[in-house]
């Protein structure tokens, strides 16, 4: 008798009310994964798509072949950036609740990924980011006040109120204009990198995508172009376990890991502990060096956890246990870097608390200045006249007529 078929629909291990369980997350001990030469044959490191590169161990020590890439000073700067980003997020979520902006997307738990990666890039390189990599700007000293102006859509908003909050565009900081349409930036990053190669320049590109969005055709289109043309690009997948309410297993399917997606394309594919500032930096540097040496693309999966809500419009307690983020086995990136610096004797609880207060003050000061330029619902906003500008380089007659008709 023929077997009746039935549909397999993947489900997360636990739902609200259950006990968080990450026993299925396989994590190699810090220091265990080898560091191959940058010109390694991708076929020789296929297993790296299934392990996790980590530098910081439980005792806060930096161990193994990927350790030692950063000085104390650089590490303290990293701490500074992560805490600044965290403070900005905290204040902007409150601002959204107060009606000063319509929407906000935070990074809680993922601060190491973008802030550490920014440090492997050089002036002239270009990021094609998602909405969850504002750390690329923070770690490049982009003025907070300008970020908040954009979030508030006030008179000093560089995007003139046209874009959703947090969808920045900062060419001089290597930050390509952000789209809300998922995955579109991925092949664009590859194309930008190909252009760099066509023109014989030295700049590289970085593409960014979330675990959920790797299901989009654009992700695969990006990989095939990167693979075929050996584009000088670092392809970053941020696996924060959740895509709004949908767990990562829905997008991953039977691939085992997101990094493993790169194997079919012959692209060196690595996984890294995304909550380990040192590991993110070391692996990013390895991949960036490969791109700079004309060795082609690298795919990196950052294993992390979205501790906060997807956006201010989301309530994660509806689909996952409240305790899940605390149970995440890779900890919190800020606390882990702090433990490391304390273990090294260059940091203390006091200095940490002091920096935390300082970062909050810095954000509040920038927020005050930005508020002087207006907020979402104040009168001090980009004018409706601006709405008609910039659709084309030169305003065509039909739009001119419409602007006139609108009376602005």
């Amino acid at each position: 008798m023929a077997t009746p078929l039935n549909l397999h629909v993947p489900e997360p291990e636990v739902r609200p009310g259950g006990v968080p369980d990450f026993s299925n997350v396989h994590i190699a001990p810090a220091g265990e994964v080898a560091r191959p030469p940058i010109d390694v044959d991708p076929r020789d490191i296929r297993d790296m798509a299934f392990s996790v590169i980590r530098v910081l161990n439980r005792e806060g020590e930096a161990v193994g072949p990927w350790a030692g890439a950063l000085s104390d000073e650089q590490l303290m700067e990293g701490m500074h950036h992560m805490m600044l980003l965290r403070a900005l997020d905290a204040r902007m979520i409150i601002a959204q609740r107060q009606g000063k902006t319509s929407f906000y997307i935070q990074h809680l738990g993922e601060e190491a990924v973008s802030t550490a990666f920014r440090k492997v890039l050089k002036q002239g390189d270009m990021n094609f980011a998602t909405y969850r990599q504002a750390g690329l700007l923070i770690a490049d000293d982009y003025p907070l006040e300008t970020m908040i102006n954009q979030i508030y859509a006030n008179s000093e908003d560089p995007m003139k109120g046209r874009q959703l909050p947090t969808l920045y565009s900062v060419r001089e900081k290597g930050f390509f204009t952000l789209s809300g349409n998922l995955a579109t930036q991925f092949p664009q990053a590859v194309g930008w990198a190909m252009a760099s190669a066509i023109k014989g320049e030295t700049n590289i590109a970085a593409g960014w995508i979330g675990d959920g969005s790797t299901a989009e055709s654009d992700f695969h289109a990006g990989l095939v172009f990167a693979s075929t043309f050996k584009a000088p690009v670092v392809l970053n997948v941020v696996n924060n376990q959740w895509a709004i309410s949908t767990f990562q297993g829905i997008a991953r399917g039977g691939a085992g890991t997101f990094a493993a997606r790169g194997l079919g394309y012959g692209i060196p594919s690595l996984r890294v502990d995304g909550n380990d500032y040192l590991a993110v930096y070391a692996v990013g540097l390895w991949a960036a060096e490969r791109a700079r040496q004309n060795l082609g693309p690298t795919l990196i999966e950052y294993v992390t956890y979205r501790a906060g809500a997807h956006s201010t419009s989301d309530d994660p307690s509806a689909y996952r246990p409240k305790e899940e983020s605390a149970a995440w086995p890779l900890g919190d990136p800020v606390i882990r870097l702090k433990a490391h610096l304390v273990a090294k004797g260059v940091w203390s609880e006091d200095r940490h608390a002091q920096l935390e207060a300082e970062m909050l003050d810095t954000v509040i000061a920038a927020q005050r200045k930005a508020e002087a330029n207006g907020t979402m619902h104040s009168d001090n906003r980009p004018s409706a006249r601006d709405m008609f500008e910039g659709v084309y380089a030169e305003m065509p007659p039909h739009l001119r007529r419409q602007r006139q008709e609108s009376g602005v």
Partner: protein
Amino acid sequence: MARMTMIQAIRDGMDVAMGRDETVVVYGEDVGYFGGVFRATQGLQEKYGRSRCFDAPISESGIVGTAIGMAANGLRPCVEIQFADYMYPAYDQITQEAARIRYRSNADFTCPMVVRMPTGGGIFGGQTHSQSPEALFTHVAGLKVVVPSNPHDAKGLLIAAIEDPDPVIFLEPKRLYNGPFDGHYERPVTSWGKHPDGEVPEEHFTVPLGQAKVKREGRDVTVLAYGTMVHVALAAADDTGIDAEVIDLRTLLPYDLDAITTSVRKTGRCVIVHEATLTSGFGAELAALVAEHCFYHLEAPVRRVAGWDTPYPHAQEWDYFPGPARVGAALTETMEA
């Protein structure tokens, strides 16, 4: 009868359809366990099981492409695109495949499916959560395009769409999910609870596709509108005191030519309102129809009120949105012409 919001009516429509016909399946991003970001599918997975209501990977072309395959294999998929702004990766599957499967196979295969998607602005959604892409679908032979303006019609039209033998694009004005909205954004939103269109039969019923509805009778000017703009048009008629006949098109393709021509021949004037950008919008089609069929009855030029020809701006949303003031001005000018 029960009082329902539009989101409840849409959910109820899927529930009724799934309960009557086990070939109806529902899926899309965040649709299963969570019940969709607007909660349109809440409770359906629990009730009908995971193989009839489930979370899809974030792949709009995958969602629509698989729905075509399911439809070809005897199911009636009703899939959700999270926001209409995100249907573009699926556009190829919708327009080149779903729309033509019956035609190109001489009905060897058919494609009975519904693609639901929230449309329109007024929620500070910016460029990527506010679009009204109806004209991109009405230009495609083989599709049907529906835009409800109230809970009653939403449920009846959705069930009709699910039962329809051809692919239907079901556009849901998200500004209307929780209550009617007249474009006076500074006023608090009224609820559907006190609105006659919030009364929705709990059982199975359909609102036939292709039939418009006169929402307000009038003698002086016909206003053609759909979705959110029906409510804006009604508000503009009230504000100006002009005796306007407001027609809710409900289905854009196939459109109800009879309803349009009967009304315009009676009033001799026509104002068309939509939220999508003006140029090559569906209003252009309506204006052409009126010119072709009612030319000798017209006492004034046909006017269109629409979104400006710019991408949807986030902070200037209320300057972009065709509100009652702009519609009112067009009515007044039409009457004076």
